[in-house]
């Protein structure tokens, strides 16, 4: 049990201890607050693989009465070798004293063997009031590292370094709110240097995290591919009394179709968010920012769809009308089930005519009645719009730092740059796949593999 590396994040209140824990533990529920002293109790954030803890981060309250505590310790100390004992005496003595609640909470895990991560803010100057804290931590004799967080600047980093070097074996700069995955892994590597006995566990943890990262991308790409396939093939149908199109029925089917597609997109984003570990976030906080634009809106189409030129280059535009609005996306067809060829009886919009008879209509029988079909959405830009929105969402959410609490702001530039970020070849391959789906209402396994791979590249 003692070989599991444990790290107590300590320091002055309000210097980003909890933010660092949130980032490292990819946990957006860590109590981060601008009000100092928010974290009242030590709280553990284990990293587990199949239930086995590989390391553990402990968010602690900050020091509140370090000066007084150090004086007590100095008075009770008999020799340098006695320091740990005197710390333990302190914990015993004040365990139930509300005055030293925070100090006891933060010391307990350390005295049980946790390593120390001492957090300071490199944007603010060093001050003498930090000295007692650092001394107390030094007294514990535990392996310790200082992290210089950057709450809005780094003017005082070197000043801090000079002070911290006196008390800590490793001093690093770590920007809690902007540390990407690589930086976090680097930090874990630095933890390894703190104590040899933690090396293996942390090594395993790093491997697992890296593996997990790659899988996350793959999983997300698969979800997106599935979404595309589903929405591109989605249809609605209802029975008709005769061969004439019931316009009211048609428009209700159209809105049902659109609702279904929106819902499916929503669901996909849910899963993507969860795959990225933003599980406990209030649903929709970010999505509302990004996806508030309705998927069927003109703006969505102009933001995410390919331009006419782009479409023409990929050859997708031929035969289909590019860049259109709603009226051409849906249409109706009434057909006589089972009659086989020539079953389309009329009133069919041009876009749908070619596709209403698909494979399965062989199951229809001559005694079947009339059915009104709406969908699938056949606009050539439709899959691009869905793809663009969802991929952009994934990119944002996957790099979304767990210490951030505000919503993502999405500019239309980021949407524009999406279609630009693809090269000709990618666009061509995707365009061909979309064409296959559009024309055959299905995809073969090879196509699926290729689609997933393309999306993976876009998500990176």
């Amino acid at each position, binding site marked *: 049990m003692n070989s599991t590396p444990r790290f107590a994040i300590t320091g*002055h209140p309000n210097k980003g201890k909890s933010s660092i824990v949130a980032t490292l*533990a990819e*946990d957006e*529920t*860590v*109590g*981060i*607050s601008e*009000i*100092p002293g*928010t*974290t009242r109790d030590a*709280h553990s*954030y*284990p*990293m*587990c*693989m*199949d239930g086995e803890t590989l390391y553990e981060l402990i968010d602690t309250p900050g020091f*509140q*009465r370090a*000066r*007084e505590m150090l*004086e007590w310790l100095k008075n009770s100390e008999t020799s340098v070798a006695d320091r740990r004992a005197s710390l333990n005496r302190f914990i015993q003595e004040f365990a139930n004293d509300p005055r030293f609640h*925070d100090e006891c909470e933060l010391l307990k895990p350390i005295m049980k063997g946790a390593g120390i991560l001492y957090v300071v803010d490199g944007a*603010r*100057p060093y*001050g*003498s009031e930090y000295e007692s804290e650092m001394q107390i931590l030094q007294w514990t004799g535990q392996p310790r590292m200082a992290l210089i967080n950057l709450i809005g600047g780094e003017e005082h980093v070197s000043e801090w370094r000079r002070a911290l070097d006196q008390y800590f074996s490793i001093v690093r700069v770590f920007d809690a709110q902007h540390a990407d995955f690589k930086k976090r892994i680097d930090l874990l590597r630095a933890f390894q240097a703190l104590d040899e006995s933690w090396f293996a566990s942390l090594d395993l943890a790093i491997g*697992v*995290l890296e*593996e*997990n990262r790659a*899988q996350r991308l793959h999983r997300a790409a*698969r*979800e997106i*591919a599935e979404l595309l396939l589903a929405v591109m093939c989605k249809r609605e149908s209802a029975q008709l009394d005769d061969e004439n199109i019931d316009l009211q029925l048609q428009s209700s089917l159209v809105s049902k179709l659109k609702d279904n597609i929106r819902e499916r997109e929503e*669901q996909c984003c849910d*899963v993507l968010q*969860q*795959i990225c*570990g933003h*599980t406990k976030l209030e649903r929709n906080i970010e999505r509302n920012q990004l996806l508030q634009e309705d998927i069927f809106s003109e703006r969505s189409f102009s933001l995410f769809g390919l331009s006419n030129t782009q479409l023409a280059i990929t050859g997708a535009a031929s035969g289909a009308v590019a860049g259109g609005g709603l009226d051409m996306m849906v249409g109706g067809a009434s057909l006589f*089930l*089972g*009659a*086989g*060829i020539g079953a389309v009886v009329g009133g069919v919009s041009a876009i749908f005519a070619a596709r209403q*008879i698909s*494979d399965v209509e*062989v*199951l229809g029988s001559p*005694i079947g009645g009339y059915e009104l079909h709406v969908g699938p959405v056949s606009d050539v830009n439709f899959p691009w719009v869905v793809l663009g929105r969802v991929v952009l969402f994934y990119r944002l959410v996957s790099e979304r730092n767990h210490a951030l609490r505000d919503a993502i702001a999405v500019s239309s530039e980021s949407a524009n740059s999406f279609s630009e970020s693809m090269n000709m070849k990618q666009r061509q391959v995707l365009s061909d796949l979309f064409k296959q*789906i559009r024309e*055959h209402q*299905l*995809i*073969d*396994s090879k196509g*699926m593999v290729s689609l997933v791979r393309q999306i993976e590249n876009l998500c990176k």
Partner: protein
Amino acid sequence: MPEIRERSGRTLFEDTVNILHFLEADRAAPYAKRQHRDRQIGQGACENILDQPLKTVQCWWQQISADRPGEHNEGNKLIRVRGLVGLAAVVFGLLSGLGVIAAVFQYDGSHPINVVTLIAVFVILQSVFIGTSLLMLLPGQNFLSRALASLNVGAMISGIMHRTLLKSSSSSVFFMGTSDHTQAHNLLLRWQLFSWSQLLGCAFNTGALLGAVLLIVFTDLAFGWSSTLMFETVQFQKLIYLVSLPWAGIWPDASPTQALIEQSRFYRLGAEQATPFIAQSLTAWWPFVVACILSYGLLPRVVLLSISRVFVQRALATLLMDNPQVISLLDRMRTPEVALGSPVLISPEMLLDEEPHAKPNSISGSVPLIIWADAAERFQLLSRLEKDSSVQVSQAYKAGGACSMAEDMETITTLLEKRSDSILIAVKSWEPPLNDMLDFIALLRQKCGDKTQIILFPLGPDLSVADQQEVRIWRHASKRLSDAQLFVEPDL
């Protein structure tokens, strides 16, 4: 490790339907929960077969369905539907077989049953039917397969089922193929249709064979041959020879002899009655007839039926294993579950907007100034106060930070020797108000009595004006002391 039940075709079908159905609904479940559940199963019951995807998935399903018995009968329902369609095909086939035989074997004693008709029906037509159903299997959506599909009786039956029994149920969705857009699904449908057609074919031929045998045994039949086309006997002999080639070696009696063929020719016009002798020899045709039905009807149908069963199984397996959801499932079962973060949700206290706060009375006379934890350099601070404010500082003291608690105590004592109605404390606005500092204020209050104003003066770095947000935090913290004469004031 529980043994894996031997899975028959029936259960693969049932499993496939159930699994896909379950996974579709499972999409809405939280990802972490799914990951946990599937990894648990992957590490538990199915651990030793993780390298065999199909088995793994089936094993997983066993575990899942064991937890909720009786809940997932979608597959069962579909099996029944499939069985019903099959049964309908069998009944229809048997009846039509019997009917066709009854029609073809109509013998009123005036004319023998025409072998040419029999060949046309049981050899040529059958072969054409078998040929067309083979054509149906050609890949692609060609005109031919479409046209043929609409003739397909199996398809018609299931179409009828769709329109009548299963309206809008999810089972029809499965068979009509609108739920899944993988090629595998298409393939499965095709093979299922093919299989039904073969079942119907088998039933038809069984009916025909049964009818033929019954009629031969219990009634008096005579066979002969006659053709409006001017068939020469020799040509007819050749035809019979060709037709009976498949069984010539095994069943010689079923190959009509030259004599029999010559004897049994008859002409509808110029009706000369067959003599009883001839009539008797004419019954000798029956083995040929039976052999025709067997080898051109029943046997190929049985072979095709068994092939189709195999292909249905394979298509089912592909449908299951190609499904993206199933691929994700396998992925979840095989890869370690990585959990970061805490399962407990904490909601921190957030800072309110500007809280109401009181202003200190204007400071009269000179006041003592305490510089807390080196909030500023003494002389710089004093000259700034002199320049920018009306406050007159009588004496500046140091407390907090590097000072000891005893030194702080001493500072309080000396400072209170001179009376003053206010005390100023300069603090670093960017540092949080710690209890260490609040203790000091409480002590100071205790010593100086209730009347004296204690004014916290937050300073930004390098004597700059304190940030508004930081001031708010200081005001918030100072409330903890519930001291009416304690103020936080960034501008003096």
